[in-house]
């Protein structure tokens, strides 16, 4: 109900809009960094000692994920049709992680671990 009132107040809307982006920036660093930290927290629970291949999955996928950040023009000679598929580092990392996991670990169902990870991601 408070939200409806806030939504009907143009003054509030103007106040929010007048916030310059550099004010948001300080909070953005925390906000977005928290997402990365949550990912690292989930990765901390992964067993690397008995399954060294997990290191490969993480190493290669994070590398794939930061390609568009570091080399934004990497796709300039590639066909235009595949640009939407490769311009997002998140998509590149997801595809790489799922495929490498299938390759190294197969499709073994470890539901308990999946549920624990999902709960951690939710709790962040």
């Amino acid at each position: 109900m408070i939200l409806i009132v806030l939504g009907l107040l143009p003054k509030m809307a103007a106040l929010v809009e007048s916030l310059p982006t550099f004010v948001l920036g300080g909070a953005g660093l925390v906000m977005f960094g928290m997402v990365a930290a949550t990912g690292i927290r989930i990765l901390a629970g992964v067993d690397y000692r008995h399954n060294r291949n997990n290191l490969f999955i993480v190493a290669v996928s994070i590398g794939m994920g930061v390609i568009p950040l570091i080399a934004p023009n990497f796709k300039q000679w590639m066909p235009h049709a595949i640009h939407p598929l490769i311009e997002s580092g998140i998509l590149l990392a997801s595809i790489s992680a799922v495929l490498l996991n299938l390759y190294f670990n197969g499709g073994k169902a470890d539901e308990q671990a999946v549920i624990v990870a999902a709960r951690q991601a939710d709790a962040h």
Partner: protein
Amino acid sequence: MTPDVHPVDERLPHGKLAALGLQHVLVMYAGAVAVPLIVGRALKLSPEQVAMANSHPGTDGAGLIFGSIIGAGVISILIAPLVSRMLRFFPPVVTGTIIAVIGISLMRIGINWIFGNPFGPTAPSVPNPEHLAWLEAAKQAAANGSVPPVPQGMAIVGSAPNPKYAQLSHIGIAAIVLVSILLIAKSCVWPVA
């Protein structure tokens, strides 16, 4: 607060309840206005238009966006059973990697908020005005035929530092916001998850 009451049913003291309630409203408000704020700025709408979109949505192009979001929601509901069966492809090593990369990718946005977008009016370097004036003179000279014509699409690349990029005052304000968040975070008692 007797120990036999489940934490979910626990009733907090009024002061704490009000503070946490206000926090929740602010979080919800931030979530609701963040999208029009970011999309509106990306579309280069004037601040007044964005403020309007926050208080009541417009009709034309925005209708299409809202319609697509509703459509995406329906599709998500329909494919949810399928996705749940794909869960075995997503062990923690995969989800953790993906979430870490999402965070790392988003950091660019936060960093650009502080220093300014590296493209457009806040790009780190702008064309030197002297160079621009020279190109203008060369174009006029080329029109008289005294110098060879200026090639198509010739442009002056930015070489002078842009005062609008990474202003020290902006960095300082972002630092103040960051430090305030860290101070508030330290004074908070975090619920045990």
